[in-house]
């Protein structure tokens, strides 16, 4: 099944849930010093996930099953500069 993650086409198994992709993306940025600092201070990375143009609440990540053609992006809490 084909989806797009951060603008890049990706093949995933049917039935894959959003939480699995979120965990992959969180693992990718876990060594970033800003993310490390945020987790130390607040317990969370504060990355926001946008599925097909809509922000998905963290509590919904485990229940959402990805669909063919879905577009997933993430946004960092950073702003400015």
């Amino acid at each position, binding site marked *: 099944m084909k989806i797009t993650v*951060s603008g*890049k086409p990706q093949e995933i198994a049917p039935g894959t849930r959003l939480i699995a992709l979120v965990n992959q993306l969180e693992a990718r940025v876990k060594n*970033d010093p800003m993310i490390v600092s945020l987790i130390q201070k607040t317990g969370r990375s504060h990355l926001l996930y*946008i599925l097909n143009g809509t922000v998905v609440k963290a509590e919904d990540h485990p229940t959402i099953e990805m669909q063919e053609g879905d577009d997933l*992006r993430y946004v960092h809490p950073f*702003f*400015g*500069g």
Partner: protein
Amino acid sequence: MKGVWNKILKVDLTAKKAATEHVPDEVYAYFLGGEGLAAWVLNKECPRGTSAFDPANRLTLAVGPMQGIKQSGAAKWAVGGISPSINMNAGSAITHAFGIEMKQAGYDAVVVHGRAEKPVYIVIDDDKVRVKDAARLWGKDSYDAHDLIQEKEGDGFEVVTTGQAGERLVRYANIQTAHKSFAGRCGFGAVMGSKLLKGIAVRGSQTCPIADPMANDALNKAINKRLAEVNASKPELFRISHLGTAMATALFAPQGNLPVKNYQLASHPEGETNLGGQSYVEKLNAKPWACRYCVIKCHNKCEVKNGPYAYKGKGPEYESFAMMGFNLLIADQEAVAYAGELANRYSMDTISLGGVLAWAMESYEKGVLTQEDTYGIDLAWGNAAAMVEMVRKIGERAPGLGYLLGEGCKIASERIGQGSEQWAIQMKGQEIAAHNWRAQYISALNYCTGVASGPNHERGNSQHIWVGHILLPEWGIDHVENAERWSWEKAAERNAKFHDYCNVINSAVHCKFQEFASYNLTDLLATINTCTGLNWSQEELRRCGERITNLQKLLNIRYGWKTADDFNYPKRFMEPVSEGVAAGKIPAGLDEAIVDYYRHRGWDDKGYPTAAKLRELGLESVPG
């Protein structure tokens, strides 16, 4: 082509005449508008040898195909010309509503040249253009002059002005609008001053047709909704409408990205406590102050109610906190905010001002400057009152050091000598913005190779890859590892893409801060296509950015750029700091990386575009 008027207004202040000029579609298909259009004007009208304060310099205020649509971020517009800080072509972005009004008046650009006999301001009311006497405005600060023009001209006019620093040719004097937004970098306020031009008022009543209004409307609504939702979904700790860009200090500190003590140190704990988002709200009473159509609302109004720094007005942004606070070891947020507003009124860019003051403080510390030079002011690191007083001296161009510092730290250090060139943190005459090369080497490459405005963090914002996780997946930058901050391996390609990206954004014209709320290249391309009907692909959009970059490079060469300029960078960044994640990191290998960038660009090893590259981009001859 839709989304543009194919028309620019040219005002000759020497002859006191205004005329319109037709601009063919090909020009927009090549350079879009905004900064690209301003570069096209220079290419056509300002030959080699034209200098910033020459009456022949063209000061271009330009919009692009996106102005007039109701999309968050589309209030942005551009200023371009030959810069007195870098003595080359440059651009600067500014926002609020002046650009929208200029578009509604029926122009894609207003191009001012010549020099008035006495101070003037320009009034543009659709097709009626008048040059008016500004004798009573001359000597006023930028806000007071702005208000007097609005009061005189009546409702509906948007106004830009420059303050006393612009009149007095401070090389980093800016242009302001609405007491809140600034074409901050590159000294275009001084270009206004050199033309004896105090301000411009514009009012328009026309709507520029776009290619697909229904699709554009639907797109705007969807984008605005998503951006607002993203912004609202962020915890209050990171919500921009609440904290302004000041929040960035807390996020940059753990990355080693802040400038501390003229880029000598890695941290300033007291500054990290005081100069950040939460104290910004609590101590400065910050409230959102949106630009037209913007859902992000990064500007803030602030108020200090009591004490020596009482004021009500524009709140400091990240760069002001960083350069006027951290960089000077000052942690008094009220003093930094007040000094920033003083600078705004005089019309001085707080990035350059912070860089210049840091040079002066280090010179004072080392005995190169003494109290005999500083009007008796104790210009010690961390002395907030001294900083405020020196802002006044520079804004007024007080004889002596105040005047000299208005020239920027390059010229000041060359005049003072005694080795002080070593701590003038500038390139090509412009002070370096608040992104630390040790925190991500790509910042070094960006500042050294930038062609759109010298060493500029918003004409090539590749630092955002690291400091803000902004990638360009549509252009192939879809993932980075943290360790790559300190690698040159893909730096040339990434840096080139971010230069081109900034060029399309600054030419479209759109606000780059929307990207922090999820705005992306897919949004930008769809918007450009629904406005213009160009129906470009991402490859064509990138090609447009590349074309603008190359035009700017050709102009750099025309106005005197030499290869050595790119390699004459501040050596301070080659001195490691001892704390934080960037401890021990220096951008060694930068010289090779610069040459690698040239090659990646299809330029020769000296940084000159090759004939083949220019042919490929259709730049053997520029249209129009």
